[in-house]
């Protein structure tokens, strides 16, 4: 019955726990928001926020793919 699920459970990636795609995207978005908030507070005076967006988008992709 497990196999019927489309959000297939698979071997844990570098997050070291069982996750489906939804879980990993969720984690990615949480990190995305956290990076932006911290960036605005501490780094934005010197580095533009766009850099944060790029970094976090890459992170979301990495987590969704290999997490």
């Amino acid at each position, binding site marked *: *019955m497990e196999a*019927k*699920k*489309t*959000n297939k459970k698979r071997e844990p990636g570098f997050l070291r726990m069982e996750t489906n795609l*939804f879980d990993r995207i969720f984690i990615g978005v949480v990190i995305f928001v956290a990076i932006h908030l911290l960036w605005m507070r501490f780094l934005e005076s010197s580095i533009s926020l766009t850099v944060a967006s790029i970094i976090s988008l890459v992170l979301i992709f990495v987590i969704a793919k290999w997490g």
Partner: protein
Amino acid sequence: MKQSARRKGLKQVFLYIVWIALTLITLFPIYWMFLISARSRVELFSNRNLYQTTIFWENFVRPLFQGVYGQYVVNSLIVATGNTLLVVVLAVLAAYALSRYRVKGGQNIFFWTITNRMAPPAAFMLPLFLLYSRVLRIGDLQLYDTHIGLILVYCVFNLPFAIWLLKGIIDGIPTSLDDAARVDGASTVGIIRRIIVPLAAPGIAITALLAWIFAWNEFLFATTLTSVKARTITTGLVEFVTVVGTNWGEMAAMAIISLLPALLFLVLVQRYIIAGLTFGAVRE
């Protein structure tokens, strides 16, 4: 042997002392409120006794029958009962679905419903207020300050809670019963009505009770989403605290009134409370 019996006796005594102390701590604030509600304004600040022989009925009568609080009590009754009925019916259906079927992303749906329960009402108040009073309106028809508006909004915290409790209970009913009924040609609704509901009745009762109490006790949504017509008794309590001074006696009296139904229900179902609170955490 004798010594161990004595130790056991001592232990019993110790237990009783702990429980009696706890009972006193638990009851004292409520008892004090009762004392305040039985005293007139003058007596409040002069009488420091921890007992009371007279009751100043004015505190109860004036707000209930001359003030608006009678109406508030009625509003609270309508909203809590309506919400409980809605929540229990929907939660039985949903819990059955989550318990018996493998729904795609069922885990995620479950997580989402729980998030609703956990979400701080403070964070939802502004958008709900704006939606109720400005966005979701047709002409003069709006959800703001209506009973139905409150009944719907209380689903936010009651529905996930009810689903959570009931799912644990329905999980405990063997599926073989469903299958047998299905072979006999019963529909899904028939199975829920004739097998699940009777077997889960104690669980459903405790769920309904808790949902009713939560709805009756709710304050934040009630105070932001109503203004005159649908105000509930908890919002009324705050109205006693005014800049010109608080009528403590009347406030305590209304607080006592708001306690009564919860007390009554507690007495009725106290034996089921523990059985109902397992949250599906322990498999039997």
